[in-house]
């Protein structure tokens, strides 16, 4: 048995000689205090004890206060009341659940009582640890369930129109994430919606808003797609080849605007107090022509990497972050993707990744790495992943990281 540590509680810091002798004989480490000493002690100043020996003249109420004070410090000593003469004083203590010691304080008997106390305290401590551990496990399980549900808010598979390569890397910093991405077909599969977004902050709050914002965007875009097609037909436009020659693609712009403006007004109407917002890039791509119409709501500018060696083009914000300003304007941006080009869309977890010395990855290094990379789809993401992990080293990932590469394969003859 480890050495027994005993706290003796007495108003006069007096220990009956027989008891002191017995404690000494069994090798117990003793501390003698008044109840006031314990109650006034600053946190962490009390010795860790397994038994609290209280003189029977103290009131059970006082003893309970002292025990509670020790419990605040994580101690669970067994309370033992002792009396040297007036044995009737023990009644109240015993009724209150305390153990007791009475003279003669024979060392073997005292030792046996203290051993019980020690085992009791040990058991209490183990029980507490088990309970705390169980609680932690249940939180972890809940979070894990949250993570699985959240994955259901990301697309199962990415559509792959002819000659297009769309690949994603998604790495939450915690179990649940504020980042999300989405790729889905619009306007009778003639357009492709590309979304990369970042809900501010991280953890469970951001994850809940991620689910809301993703659903609002996708639902609104999908619902307004068909009306738009009808509108285009009524206007006498022939969908299809006519758009090859049109510099500004209109089909797809309506679901895009409806989705972003609708989501912004929904969030500012219903959730403004909670202060969550999302930066997002929402593009609508015509896979036949490579025309891209987009809204960049306060998001890190995606990079259009040329396949022919032209300098990269940044798709700058066309409006503010979504969800904070009630009556703001979102404009449409336009870009032309050519065969061989890659559109790289990412969240700030990439540019704000930090090295062990605290430096940021930054946009300059991002552009440099993107232009250096040889590959264009999966290989480009591999390259960026490699560059990031080399930069970050052993530092901990502090923010969600999402990267999407949208590559239009060059025709075989130029690739040779």
């Amino acid at each position, binding site marked *: 048995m480890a050495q027994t540590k005993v706290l003796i509680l007495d108003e006069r810091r007096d220990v009956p000689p027989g008891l002191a002798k017995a404690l000494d004989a069994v090798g117990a480490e003793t501390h003698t205090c008044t109840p006031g000493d314990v109650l006034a002690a600053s946190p962490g100043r009390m010795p860790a004890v397994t038994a609290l020996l209280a003189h029977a003249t103290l009131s059970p109420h006082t003893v309970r206060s002292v025990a509670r004070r020790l419990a605040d410090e994580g101690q669970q000593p067994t309370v033992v009341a002792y009396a040297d003469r007036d044995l009737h004083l023990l009644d109240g203590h015993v009724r209150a659940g305390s153990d007791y010691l009475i003279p003669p304080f024979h060392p073997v008997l005292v030792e046996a009582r203290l051993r019980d106390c020690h085992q009791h305290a040990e058991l209490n401590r183990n029980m507490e640890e088990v309970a705390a551990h169980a609680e932690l496990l249940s939180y972890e399980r809940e979070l894990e369930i949250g993570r699985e549900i959240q994955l259901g808010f990301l697309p199962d598979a990415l559509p792959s129109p002819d000659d297009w390569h769309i690949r994603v890397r998604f790495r939450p910093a915690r179990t649940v994430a*504020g980042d999300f991405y989405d790729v889905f077909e619009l306007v009778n599969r003639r357009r492709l919606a590309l979304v990369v977004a*970042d809900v*501010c*902050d*991280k*953890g469970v709050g951001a994850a809940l808003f991620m689910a809301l914002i993703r659903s609002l965007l996708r639902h609104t875009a999908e619902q307004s797609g068909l009306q738009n097609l009808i509108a285009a037909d009524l206007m006498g436009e022939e969908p299809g080849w006519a758009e090859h020659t049109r510099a500004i693609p209109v089909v797809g712009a309506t679901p895009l605007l409806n989705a972003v403006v609708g989501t912004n007004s929904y969030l500012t109407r219903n959730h*403004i*107090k909670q*202060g*969550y*917002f999302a*930066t997002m890039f929402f593009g609508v791509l015509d896979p036949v022509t490579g025309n891209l119409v987009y809204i960049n*709501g*306060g*998001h*890190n500018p995606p990079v259009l990497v040329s396949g022919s060696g032209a300098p990269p083009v940044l798709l700058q*914000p066309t*409006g*503010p*972050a979504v969800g*904070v*300003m009630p009556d*703001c304007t979102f404009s449409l941006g336009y870009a032309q993707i050519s065969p061989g080009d890659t559109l790289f869309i990412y969240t*700030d977890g990439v540019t*704000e990744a930090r090295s062990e010395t605290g430096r*940021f990855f930054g946009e300059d290094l991002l552009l440099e790495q993107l232009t250096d990379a040889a590959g264009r789809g999966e290989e480009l993401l591999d390259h960026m992943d490699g560059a990031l992990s080399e930069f970050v080293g052993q530092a901990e990932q502090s*923010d969600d990281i999402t990267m999407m590469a949208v590559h239009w394969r060059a025709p075989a003859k130029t690739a040779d």
Partner: protein
Amino acid sequence: MAFDVRLRINDKVATIELKGELDASTAGEFHETVGKAAGAGAVELVIRAEQLGYLSSAGLRSLVFARQKMGDGVRIAVVGASEPVARTIRLAGFDHSIDLVDA
């Protein structure tokens, strides 16, 4: 640099000086200080950001809270923000509701 936030109120103008990094771990402290400034009835909030090294999206969120807490009539200015901090504010479009001064 360790995070530090200081509040001064002079003639109904509250000045909050920020040092270090405003992110998820420090936003709460900033938020409390803004609460004090609002409680003191400040009519203008000046955020000195010369020594602010980094503003994360959680930090941006705390600027949204500052805007809400101070009320629409109160001018909020972020003064002397470094290029990356100013860029983060501009990128999100928050420079429309908060004045960026000397950035």
